[in-house]
């Protein structure tokens, strides 16, 4: 299945794109997708521990199965205000 991933802040700069579309197997979890991205973009490996995932605008646990047509975002801890 195809997923659309948004990156923000440091991750956007490391990846060099705001969005990336990827083909992933069904039954892919958030953790698996993170792993896949770290392999594809080794420059984000150093920040891996603090990468936050959101699926369809909700914070997502590593074990969450990614639903079809999901909008996914990866970003560092937020710093608004």
């Amino acid at each position, binding site marked *: 299945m195809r997923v659309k991933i948004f990156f923000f*802040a*440091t991750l956007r700069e490391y990846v060099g794109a705001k969005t990336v579309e990827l083909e992933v197997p069904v039954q892919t979890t958030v953790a698996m997708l993170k792993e896949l991205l770290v392999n594809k973009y080794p420059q984000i490996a150093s920040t891996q521990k603090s990468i936050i995932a959101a699926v369809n*605008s909700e*914070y997502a*646990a590593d074990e969450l199965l990614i639903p079809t047509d999901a909008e996914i975002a990866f970003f560092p801890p*937020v*710093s*608004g*205000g």
Partner: protein
Amino acid sequence: MDYPTITTITKLELDLDALIASVTLPSTGAAAIFSGIVRGKTERGNAHETSYLEYEAYQPMAEAKMRQVAHEIRKRWPLVEGIAIVQRIGRLYPQTPTVMIICTAEHRDTGVFDAARYGIDRLKEIVPIWKKEVSPEGEYWVEGEYIPKSGE
């Protein structure tokens, strides 16, 4: 009755008077306001100067999480009437207001001060907005410390 809840991300200058008016009801007698401002000179901790801050947001999620913060405020402080949570994004220079949190109520002893404080603290935990600090020495992304839990 439905109390006004304003949650906005904007590139425009923040208008405090208009914002207060938007959360003021006939019954309102108190408004607690917090505003964050770009600090040009930092003395505490790592002393440094700031040229400007560059804000970005994951807009649909940020607005949803702002509505969630407002909902949490209402659950904790049921006497709060109006709530406004507004974040300005883009390039913002020292002495410019960046965020405004307003909670209104009939009286000041209703928890409005704590409610506004909770609003800014919670925004800094779960609302997906980031800022890059640019100073004469270089630039870096400011990162928070909070890792939100699943479904939070």
